[in-house]
């Protein structure tokens, strides 16, 4: 019997798992996709918010600043990429300036550090590529960017290193309340646990319903994002926000951690919990909105686009807390600033569990460090040579566009990659100009070899995302040979 079963291996589930792995508990993460973070997390914008947007009267508003503060320590321990590039909320005309003042005040109440209003001259000097018609800006130096999937991978890897068990491809179908605990049923097994932490994102309300709870509902809100050509790198140095609208922060200019600029996200109520399609209307909206803020950016600069779904609760706030069902905790409705708040949510949940009577005995052999992937392409020639001397597979190039070597593909598989997307998100192979044209077959062979699976069973991201199918002759041949 586990002490805690966390349903949902997104960034929230992984953050909670890592936090709980400090203590003498047996914890399991139960994830429905082929890998962690394959739901909303991998489509997240990757922004670590300063915290001045959200009201101090909401749970999301309360947790965001604490979450932001925790990122430096987490980054030094888990070695994921994190950069405090700062953020500017820009006023497009004079009527927007009072809103900047209001945001500044709101931030100060919450303890957001370093907030400053910049006048037009300062703004033009610091961000010369923004529209010269912008009047002023609110600067927040504590905002930053990460790769959200990199963060989730690092969290779960450290959690597993410290004893947490991860089950993937395991959607929870039923939950029985039994003997002071719960029995979760997935297609392959039954999991007995004392406590259930429901971080099931887009499906959190469905999971709660499995134990007869219907206190909240989740409705998906789609966000489309557009990645721009590498040659626009450096166009802006900070996160650029317009003055926010009612339930959305607006269309942003996001210099992602790798430097590539991204614009978006839209905020559109979505029909179903699987609809991650981008649309013409979304594209038009994004690029029309951006024109007034940064006229150099046009739709033609797009190199790729994608969409994600936010799990928004009917109260429009986080739903974190115990329920009528003893031992069943909800951590649901984690929309923006969920990624920023994640470390604080983990602490909050830990404290909640403690209040519920869970004994938290700290491990004295807790290993807080994750070394981080060696990115061959970013190393000096000397460091590259040293790596190659230790492992000649560092001299075997698999992804030409991002200069990813075979050793790094193996490392991605060692660290949990089971699919092509898993390799892509861990090593960057397939993210470059040719979008996998050169490296796809190589990565498929490497996966097939390591996983002991036939080539044609390798998928893009699990589920039904098969890549190739067998030729009829080959199938007959196999049948004849009795393989």
């Amino acid at each position, binding site marked *: 019997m586990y002490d805690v079963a966390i349903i949902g291996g997104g960034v929230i589930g992984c953050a909670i798992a890592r936090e709980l792995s400090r203590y003498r508990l047996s914890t399991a993460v139960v994830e429905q996709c082929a890998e962690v973070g394959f739901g909303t997390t991998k489509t997240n914008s990757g922004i670590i918010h300063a915290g001045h947007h959200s009201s101090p009267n909401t749970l999301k508003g309360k947790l965001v600043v604490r979450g932001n503060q925790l990122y430096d320590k987490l980054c030094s321990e888990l070695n994921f990429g994190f950069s405090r590039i700062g953020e500017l909320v820009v006023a497009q005309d004079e009527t927007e300036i009072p809103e900047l003042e209001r945001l500044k005040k709101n931030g100060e109440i919450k303890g957001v550090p370093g907030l400053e209003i910049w006048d037009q001259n300062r703004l033009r000097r610091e961000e010369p590529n923004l529209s010269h018609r912008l009047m002023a800006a609110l600067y927040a130096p504590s905002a930053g960017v990460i790769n959200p999937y990199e963060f989730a991978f690092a969290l779960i890897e450290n959690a597993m290193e410290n004893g947490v068990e991860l089950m993937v491809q395991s959607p929870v179908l039923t939950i029985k309340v039994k003997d002071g605990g719960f029995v979760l049923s997935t297609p392959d097994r039954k999991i007995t646990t004392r406590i259930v932490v429901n971080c099931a994102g887009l499906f959190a309300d469905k999971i709660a319903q499995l134990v007869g709870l219907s206190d909240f509902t989740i409705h998906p809100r789609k966000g489309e994002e557009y990645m721009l050509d590498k040659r626009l790198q450096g166009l802006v140095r900070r996160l650029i926000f317009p003055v926010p609208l009612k339930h959305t922060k607006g269309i942003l200019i996001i210099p992602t951690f790798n430097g590539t600029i991204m614009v978006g996200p839209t905020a559109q109520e979505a029909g179903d919990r699987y609809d991650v399609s981008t649309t013409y209307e979304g594209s038009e909206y994004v690029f029309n909105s951006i024109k007034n803020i940064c006229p150099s950016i046009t739709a033609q600069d797009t190199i790729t686009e994608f969409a994600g779904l936010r799990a928004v609760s009917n109260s429009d706030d986080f739903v974190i807390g115990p329920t009528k069902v003893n031992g069943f905790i909800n951590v649901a409705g984690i929309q923006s600033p969920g990624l920023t708040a994640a470390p604080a949510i983990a602490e909050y949940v830990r404290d909640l569990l403690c209040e519920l009577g869970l004994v938290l005995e700290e491990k004295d052999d807790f290993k807080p460090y994750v070394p981080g992937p060696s990115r061959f392409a970013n190393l000096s020639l000397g460091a590259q040579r040293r790596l190659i001397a230790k492992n000649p597979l560092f*001299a075997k190039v698999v992804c030409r566009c991002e200069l990813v070597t075979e050793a790094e593909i193996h490392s991605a598989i060692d660290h949990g990659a089971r699919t092509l997307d898993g390799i892509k998100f861990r090593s960057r192979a397939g993210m470059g100009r040719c979008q996998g044209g050169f490296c796809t077959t190589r990565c498929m062979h490497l996966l097939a070899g390591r996983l002991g699976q036939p080539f044609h069973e390798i998928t893009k991201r699990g589920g039904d995302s098969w890549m190739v199918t067998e030729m009829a002759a080959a199938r007959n041949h196999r049948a004849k040979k009795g393989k």
Partner: protein
Amino acid sequence: MLDKIRRKYDVVVVGGGPGGMGAALGARDSGAERVLILDREPEVGGILLQCIHSGFGLHYFREELTGPEYAERFLEKVIQDDVDLATNSYVSGIAIDSNGTKQVRVMNEQHGLFTVDTKSVVLSMGCRERTRGSIRIPGTRPSGVLTAGLAQKLVNLEGYLPGKRIAVLGSGDIGLIMARRLTLEGCEVVGVFEIMPYSNGLTRNVVQCLDDFGIPLHLSTMVAYIYGRDRIEKITVAPVEKDFKPDMSRARDVKCDTLLLSIGLIPENELSQSLGIHLDVITGGPRVSSTLETSMPGVFACGNVLHVHDLVDFVTQESILAGQFAAEWSRGIQRPMDNIRLVPGDNVHYCLPHTLSPEREHTIYMRCKEALKPCRIRVGNLMEKKLRFVVPAEMIMFKIKPDLLEKFYGDTLRIDLVPDTQGENDG
């Protein structure tokens, strides 16, 4: 493979496809003692290895060969001619020292990271395919959306099918050829969708790959959406208006489990750019002189990396020349600088090389913007040549003899493609 690598060479060729092999042979022919081909694949041959259809070598060998046959003929010559061959070798950069020696940085599993010094370099890295991102199709991002070239590799080299019910976007040759190939392998090709009002590929391929199998070619049609959760399930196609925007009122869904993209090729010039070599925005390849030398002295370019070809025979011709000049350069032979600029005029999309010299014969390669027949190539006021027809899909090649340029005293020569209004052709 030979995998013998010295430390000093006269000519190093980056890329061992038909371009690279031709350049290496040209270099040896022209007196270069030590020539090395570096190729990132396990075998040389480049894209030819996966082009199992015939249509290669008609001009050069006067035989119709398949891609692998053409490649092997050249591999034999290259081995016979004592060219060093290093496969599984990726060129990660080139540095130039104060003496002009090129230091080519190579990554290879056997030999690790090492440098090869050479006097001249021939770039022949070929090209890559345009991807979905460059034409921005909205919708979801399921598996089953791939370029026709990747599908060709999967079918012909790996022995797997990309899917069973195939839609093809773009009527470029690779897409047409794959439409036939997949049909012969038992797949259903539901249609080829082309945004222009005419096919981008050779007419021969439209006939032999589509008409023969009853595969419909939908012109002036674009793919407006891609749907599918994990795997592609359908596309939405719509006719386009004059401005290439989809008329969604006439859109319809097409069920498929695979979408092949055959929407164009881009010369792979990242390495060239890292050297600061000047590129021509139209060709996507380096600007070259009449010796096929780039803006970097001693660095030459040929094949698809210079401009996208349709006939491998032209690649061979061009690359042998590049190799010859690269060898000359390595031996310190200086050619007089070009003093004539060659510029594209009416209906000329581009012409190569970018400059000419009056001292020798030149081979001009060019493409037209729009189909025209019959027509004449007008080279300044020096020469006119009649052609039965020109189409953008077929590269035009002709020679300019030195005696023609001797009479030319200007600094810019313009090439135009004009309609031939003088009646019957002579051909």
